[in-house]
């Protein structure tokens, strides 16, 4: 039997990992970024496929909220910074090794695109909308004529944005719970699922809702697969990663993760969507809200638990 006791004389509560450095701002932003990526992905995809007419909510209505989603997310990111007035330093350099640098530049691309996309579809909710200045009318016409190109860029950029929200965490090998590349696809899938949920909320068309219900079910199955895969990977890995996985397998985060994220955020909405496809009457609000809630909780729990996982020494 071996007992080990570590008494630390460090007089600095702020470097103690239990007092994590990243609070609510980062997970909230990761959720909103993933959601924006999800909506823009479907908007771009269905435009490229030439199905704008049959998917009005996905292509035209849901993307109208994306600029607001991104602004709230960027504001949360700004609140996270301790040296706020220096935020522009992100844009004086490109650092390929730093996921945060990637994220900053992708946002620089996606945010204006989301504004353009919302602007050329604004007549969807304000049919009598008129741009006051001539230059805006010209720009509107120009961007409308370039819609397909924008859709291509948007689709690709939104996949990078979605993956980046996960890679941001997985690049840190100091936090063993995050140090798995599965977080990239998992957060992308979670973002797409949240995007599909918002599109369902905006959709008035039965056919479109049914398609997005089906898409959401497939994504949820993929997410469940990725989560199982993630834990299998952890348990077959080093001691620190086994310890990290135990935070969710019997540790302090077990109940919140499996109940909020897996059961409420994935399994129940998937069952409700299947029942809906089987012609049961289920208000779309319930599965959609649950998916959004689960997606948000996933970011929060992975962020907080990850900062508690550490190398043992």
């Amino acid at each position, binding site marked *: 039997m071996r007992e080990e006791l570590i008494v630390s004389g460090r007089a600095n509560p702020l*470097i103690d990992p239990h007092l994590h450095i990243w609070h609510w701002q980062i997970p909230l932003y990761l959720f909103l970024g993933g959601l924006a990526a999800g909506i823009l992905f479907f908007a771009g995809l269905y435009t490229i496929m030439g199905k704008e007419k049959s998917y009005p909510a996905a292509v035209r209505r849901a993307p109208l909220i994306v600029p607001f989603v991104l602004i709230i997310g960027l504001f949360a990111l700004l609140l996270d910074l301790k040296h706020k007035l220096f935020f522009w330093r*992100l844009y004086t350099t490109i650092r390929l090794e730093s996921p945060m640098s990637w*994220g900053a530049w992708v946002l620089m691309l996606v945010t204006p695109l989301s504004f353009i996309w919302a602007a050329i579809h604004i007549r969807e909710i304000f049919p009598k909308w008129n741009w006051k200045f001539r230059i805006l009318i010209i720009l509107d016409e120009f961007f409308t004529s370039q819609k397909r190109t924008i859709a291509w860029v948007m689709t690709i950029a939104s996949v990078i944005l979605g993956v980046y929200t996960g890679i941001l965490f997985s690049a840190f090998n*100091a936090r063993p719970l995050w140090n798995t590349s599965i977080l990239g696809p998992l957060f992308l899938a979670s973002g797409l699922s949240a995007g599909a949920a918002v599109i369902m909320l905006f959709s008035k068309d039965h056919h479109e809702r049914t398609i997005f219900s089906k898409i959401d079910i497939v994504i949820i199955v993929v997410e469940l697969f990725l989560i199982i895969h993630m834990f299998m990977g952890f348990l077959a890995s080093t001691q620190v990663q086994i310890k990290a996985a135990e935070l969710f397998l019997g540790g302090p985060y077990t109940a919140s993760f499996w109940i909020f994220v897996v059961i409420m955020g994935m399994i129940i909405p998937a069952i409700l969507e299947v029942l809906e496809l089987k012609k049961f009457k289920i208000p779309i609000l319930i599965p959609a809200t649950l998916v959004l809630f689960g997606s948000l909780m996933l970011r929060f729990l992975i962020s907080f638990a990850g900062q508690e996982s550490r190398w043992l020494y």
Partner: protein
Amino acid sequence: MRYAMAIDTKKCVGCSDCVVACQTENSVPVGYCRDWVVEVTDGTYPQLEIEIRSERCNQCDNSPCVRCCPTGASHYAEGGIVLVTPNKCIGCGACITSCPYDARYPHPDGYVDKCTFCIHRVKKGLEPACVAACPTKCMYFGDLDDPNSKVSEILKVRKYKTLIPEAGTDPQLYFLI
């Protein structure tokens, strides 16, 4: 040139003079520190062993903090020392999260701060404040590329370890055991 430090865990008594010397030399704000003392008790009573370590930034050769910094504020300086340029740092916290040794802290002025191996003293030919202040002389500082430096000499004759080398950071803080 490759600056490194060796700390004798057999001689260290955990007095924390190094911590105070550092705080004084570098005007570290109250409540924070760039170095700290860890005591590890190992074994089952009555066969107990104690190890005392004065820890600080490991000035890694493969620093996760430099890799993840989005602005380039964290960088390798002369002699492999990892430094932060305050007016490039946006205080995003990525480096604090990325450090397996938790060696960094957010300075109240907004930027992230850490041990510099007292580079301002070293340039003048002095030892880092912690090394100079150590009453048991358990710390050795110098250039690893110079075979006659204090740190090279002691590493030649003593057994040593580094902290969590399996994290792939290639730390340059050696603990003599």
